[in-house]
């Protein structure tokens, strides 16, 4: 029997099925890796409390299920994961999924805006630089890109804080909203936007240079291709050449990078989130490592691997849309 489904749906289903073993392998791998690290939640908790007697520690371990062999722990964890139960965070005294969902919005907002800005501005600047290759404009753009690329994110963030918050007093130093503000409606949106300006700027300035440099070389390469010459011989002007013939083809490698970076930007946001004290996933990951909050950490990794899988899938769809030669199969 042949299923009369649209090819895109079949493709999506197949990708979904392929994603399951990937995520399971990632989870098993990280679980075992984390178990290899010395110390556990109880050690961290007891350390925080300033010490406790051996009996209390033993009881805690039994309560958290940490007295079992690693394989049993793993099996129990995977069993729960199969029902999308991410477990309980002993540090936050909340279900892990609640903790994650609280944080996910902030990180996604930060990631999506800064990457979109980096992508759009980078592509535009790269195209301009390539069209005026080896001119003053090109040199200025390329040098600036390189400077931002070479600047460590923490340094860039601190300098921005110093300038805009401390000296000029224009922007809030950190956090996602004014704590005692209790804004609602558009005031709240405006408040959050103000808080996000600096972290977004810091992240996008760093990522910008990737797109800029890739787009520049890609445009230069495509501009030399035969079909651009054909278009010129047809009497097309430079603007038309750029938008219809060069950009469309030059964008392909840049889109690949976009997909790759969207998956890794979570790691990059740890530093920025911590500096600007944004309650996002990066910051949560950092704290969970310190506090050996195994369940939260695993939850973050689970969430990240799902984001990676989804973003990869979306990139492939976008790629097939952009490049007519690629068929989804």
């Amino acid at each position, binding site marked *: 029997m042949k299923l009369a489904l649209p090819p895109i749906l079949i493709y999506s289903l197949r990708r979904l099925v392929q994603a399951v073993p990937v995520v399971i392998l990632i989870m098993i791998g990280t679980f075992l890796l984390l178990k290899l690290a010395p110390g556990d939640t109880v050690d961290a908790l007891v350390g925080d409390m300033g010490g406790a007697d051996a009996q209390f520690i033993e009881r805690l371990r039994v309560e958290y299920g940490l007295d079992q062999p690693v394989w049993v722990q793993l099996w129990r964890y995977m069993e729960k994961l199969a029902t999308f139960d991410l477990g309980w965070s002993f540090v936050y005294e909340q279900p892990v999924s609640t903790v994650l969902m609280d944080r996910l919005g902030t990180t996604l907002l930060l990631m999506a805006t800064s990457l979109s800005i980096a992508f759009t501005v980078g592509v535009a600047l790269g195209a301009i630089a390539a069209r005026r290759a080896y001119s003053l404009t090109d040199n200025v753009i390329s040098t600036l890109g390189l400077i931002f690329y070479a600047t460590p994110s923490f340094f860039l963030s601190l300098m921005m804080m110093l300038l805009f918050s401390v000296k000029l007093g224009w922007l809030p130093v950190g956090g996602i909203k004014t704590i005692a503000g209790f804004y609602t409606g558009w005031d709240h949106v405006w408040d959050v936007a103000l808080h996000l300006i600096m972290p977004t700027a810091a992240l996008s300035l760093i990522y910008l240079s990737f797109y800029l440099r890739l787009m520049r070389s890609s445009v230069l390469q495509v501009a030399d291709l035969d079909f651009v010459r*054909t278009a*010129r011989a047809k*009497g097309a002007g430079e603007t038309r050449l750029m938008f219809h013939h060069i950009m*469309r083809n030059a964008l392909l490698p840049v889109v690949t990078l976009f997909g790759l970076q969207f998956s890794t930007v979570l790691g990059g946001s740890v530093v920025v989130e911590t500096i600007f004290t944004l309650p996002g996933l990066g910051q949560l990951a950092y704290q969970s490592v310190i506090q050996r909050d195994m369940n939260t950490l695993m939850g973050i990794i689970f969430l990240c691997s799902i984001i990676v899988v989804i973003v990869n899938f979306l990139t492939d769809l976008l790629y097939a849309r952009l490049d007519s030669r690629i068929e989804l199969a």
Partner: protein
Amino acid sequence: MSDQSPILEIRDLKIALPEGSDRPFALDGLNLTVKPGEIVCMVGESGSGKSLSAGAIMRLLPEPHVHVAGGSISFLGDDILAKTDREMKQIRGNRISMIFQEPMTALNPQKTVGWQIDEVLKLHMEGNRAARRKHAIEMLNRVHIPDPESAYNAYPHQISGGQRQRVMIAMALSLSPKLVIADEPTTALDVTTQLQILKLIRELQQEDGAGVLFITHDFGVVAEIADHVIVLRQGEVVEQGAADQVLNHPQHPYTQALIASVPDLAPPPPKPVSTLPVVLKGTGLKKTFAAKGGLLSGKRKAVTAVKDLSFELHQGETLGVVGESGSGKTTVSRLVTRLLEADAGAVDVDGKDLLACSPSELRGMRKHIQMVFQDPMASLNPRKRVVDLIAQGPIVHGEDPEKARARARELLELVELSPAAANRFPHEFSGGQRQRIGIARALAMEPKVIVADEPVSALDVSVQAQVLKLLADLRDRMNLSLLFVTHDLRVAAQLCDCIIVMQKGEIVEAGVTAEVFADPKHPYTRNLLSSIPGRHWTPPVRNTDAA
């Protein structure tokens, strides 16, 4: 038609190259006239400046590095060189249009065929979308594309090479330009497609009365299509005149040499080789490029590249494998050298089945059968010196490095390169010289059989003649056997004793070259032979060892 006022008149055109080039002018003193309804062929080898002259007419030279330094180009009486950019945009694609060499790359891969034809119309024609669409489909009809409606919506990669070139032509001729510049429009095509495209250009040009400037390196094509011929060498015109005159009574020694290098269609007298021992024997070879993918991924259709192929190659014999692209001839060359694993069959080299060898046995067997590849640019490691490239094989097989290098120097002499070449890198050589290095590398192993996959296709005709001569010479001197894969029937005719004609992975005809050429049995062979450009023209033989 000779009384009409010319469409294009070029007087004393000079194109300057950037400083530090091998010569100051890419083109020095070009004079040329194209009249309505006339096809003017510009012939020359690579580097002769023929493509740049097209660029100058379109005002599309890579300025300011390369620019017009003197002379005049007048199009319908107007000075092209005095036009503004805006005026040139009006002329390009509208009054003067171009057809390019590579139909694969000359079309934007991301836009449909229809969009790309529509672009010309949008730029130069009044009229709404529906009118333009109608005109575009009419043009696709005129270039004889089957099912123009669906071709209109197809992307370039979805149609064949020949059809892509038809699309290019439709695009170029859609506004009935006065002048069409065709820059090697058939070089990348199979011979049967080439003939169709040449006929098409002829036909459309006669309907519209346009002048055509046809750039080519192939005298066969010239004989097929030209009214008037201009021969260029290193940017200078060495000879021009009516096609008949230049082709049959060339005056300048360079033209004579060029024409003499065009391989003759008359095959060599058959050698009595069948009594000699068989050195290479293929039996029942089969290769299918399997359907990829499995449980969780998509499936692709299986492609049968070679099905049930058998042949015998005697000592000292040259066996030609000819066919068009996709016929499986390259796969054959890979199978017999076991660079690709066959699905079934046997390859006996010197009585031992190469395909049944274990990996270690295979390594030993490799020295009996060596390859010469098509692209002399890509097949030599650019980071190694020539002497090491040649000596590498014997050293791998346990030869003393010093001896191997000494032998490599001897081999360079054998392929007529100076021993000084030994310590240089491949990029310092021309294409022909690189192919000689490739041959020396193959010879270093003292093989019994050499498999040559299109070894001269990337070379200019005069260089091609030299390399072919060298191969024939070495074969006779060293008693080598050659398996020679080529798409060029002229080359096959010149070198091969026996020939296999392949179509879609199967042998459609095999036999002694002279017999196959004189009396082809299979319709496909007949079609191939009758598509050879300039087959009615026999190059006058004057001075065979020039060039």
